[in-house]
């Protein structure tokens, strides 16, 4: 069974069909690319998948359960985490606190226990602290634990945002143009990171990108959208030679 599946998904803004009849499925442990030129409707799709927008029509299933109408935090708790195109970190908090916030639901102590600092508070906080540090170690960022997120270099900010999403313990990770604003060197490093986390955390990834060359190298399957509709699906090689895709990307 597919982990993430959409059926006839559509979003209309007034009379404008931003997304129409959008069907995809992502299997477990799969790395799928969602590409298309600017304005193709990719952002709208992402916002529907993560509960920011309510689709006008169609259904989204996460592990067999419909997530349409669910709030973003509910969808996270059901196992789909995301990042944002224009990095959204908790800028004035430390790097480790950024991770700990994602651990929020892992901890169970109540407000009163937190205020009076019971044994459970200490135990869970200690555990969260240790796990967050381990997490940062995986991304080679433990040295930055107490740095404010806003003071990180750009590439590290992207990494932190991905790390934070992974800390919610998702089964599928939705990456929203993670290479935006990066130089070629940073992009290459990022692609390695994406590949690494897919294996390390054994999760599925849906990677949204507008630069086609970037996803070719790492994605197992690619979905191309234009004007809100899917124009091609398939393996990177098939996509590369698809006349519709070439037309969209290079013009006639």
């Amino acid at each position, binding site marked *: 069974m597919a982990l993430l599946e959409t059926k006839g998904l559509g979003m209309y803004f007034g009379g404008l069909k931003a997304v129409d009849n959008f069907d995809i499925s992502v299997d477990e442990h799969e790395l799928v690319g969602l590409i298309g030129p600017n304005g193709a409707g990719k952002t709208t799709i992402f916002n529907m998948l993560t509960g920011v927008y309510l689709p006008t029509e169609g259904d989204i299933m996460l592990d067999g359960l419909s997530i349409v109408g669910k709030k973003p935090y509910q969808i996270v708790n059901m196992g789909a985490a995301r990042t944002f195109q224009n990095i959204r970190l908790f800028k004035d908090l430390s790097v480790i606190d950024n991770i700990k916030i994602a651990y929020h639901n892992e901890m169970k102590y109540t407000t009163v226990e937190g205020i*009076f600092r019971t044994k459970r508070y200490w135990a869970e906080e200690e555990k969260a602290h240790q796990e967050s540090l381990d997490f940062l170690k995986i991304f080679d960022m433990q040295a930055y634990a107490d740095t404010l997120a806003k003071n990180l270099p750009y590439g590290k900010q992207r990494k932190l945002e991905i790390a934070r999403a992974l800390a919610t313990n998702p089964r599928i990770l939705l990456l929203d143009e993670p290479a935006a604003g990066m130089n070629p060197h940073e992009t290459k490093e990022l692609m390695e990171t994406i590949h690494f986390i897919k294996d390390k955390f054994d999760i599925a990834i849906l990677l949204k990108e507008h630069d086609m060359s970037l996803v070719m190298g790492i994605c197992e399957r690619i979905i191309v959208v234009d004007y809100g509709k899917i124009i091609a699906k398939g393996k990177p090689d098939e996509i590369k030679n698809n006349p519709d895709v070439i037309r969209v990307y290079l013009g006639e």
Partner: protein
Amino acid sequence: MAKISIKNYIMNVLAIVILYALLKFLIWNGVISRYYLGIIIFICINIVLATSLNLATGFLGQLALGHAGFMAIGAYVSAITAISLKGSGLPNTVMLIISLLLAAIFAGVIGILIGIPALRLKGDYLGIITLGFGEVIRVFINNIKMTGGAQGLTGIPRISNIDNIFWITVVVVTILYTLTNSRHGRAIKSIREDEIAAEAVGIQTTKYKVMGFAIAAFFAGIGGGMYAHYIAFLDPNTFNFMRSVEILVIVVLGGMGSLTGSVIAAIVLTILPEALRDFANYRLLIYSGLLVIMMIFRPQGLFGTTEFSLSGFLYKLRHNQIFSSRKKIEEGD
């Protein structure tokens, strides 16, 4: 982690006990007169009001311009409770605790009722709607019989004194400190930083917004109660929009998201108008002028979002970092 914390606890508890002993000693030998004692009590009340507002505005990031409304609710509920308990023979402290708890719960519940619809708004709009609620509360109190209306409420037992006010203040600030450093506090801070991102990592933003707002109202209720039992007379117009603004000024000046900043700003801003008393009519002119100047030169407040910590300060002092960091800045220039 736990070991360092225990050391910190002991140090902070010691510092507070020493402060209290010093205060008692100075009162005993007459250095602190009745007048100064009154100022100290007002400092404590302002600390409670400002730290609680800081939770809503500094930590949660929601501009609230109606804090005096919650203070008013607390003051009146506490006063009316104490008045009705007057003949019951309860010891004063018990009476005070019952009155304050009831006041806090009442204010907190109203906080939830206002918070649920109002917190859907953001920024300035939220500020305006809380201002509106604050004014509505004041007009209500002004016009119903139970509160004594515009004539004010008299006969309130004068049961708060420097001892209980000091310790209530310590307890309130401590609770707010531990709260803001728990997972719930982090959830609250994450909403200030970026609401959309907070929701995207699984934080129930609506729940924590209402919770932060209601807890702020809860403690504002306690602050109002402390005030009522010290002044022993309530005039609804004390709790007008300007009162909300005074509390907000303390929060912003101290640093949004810094409890220690609020404490220090409460001390400074309570003493300042008193210290300027010799200037008679020019007092508030100077006060407001200074306020504008302070904002221009330090818009992030005295402490920004950082907390002053005794252990951190001592560490820096021991390692001479305070002077060396200043030197570094000078060299940098």
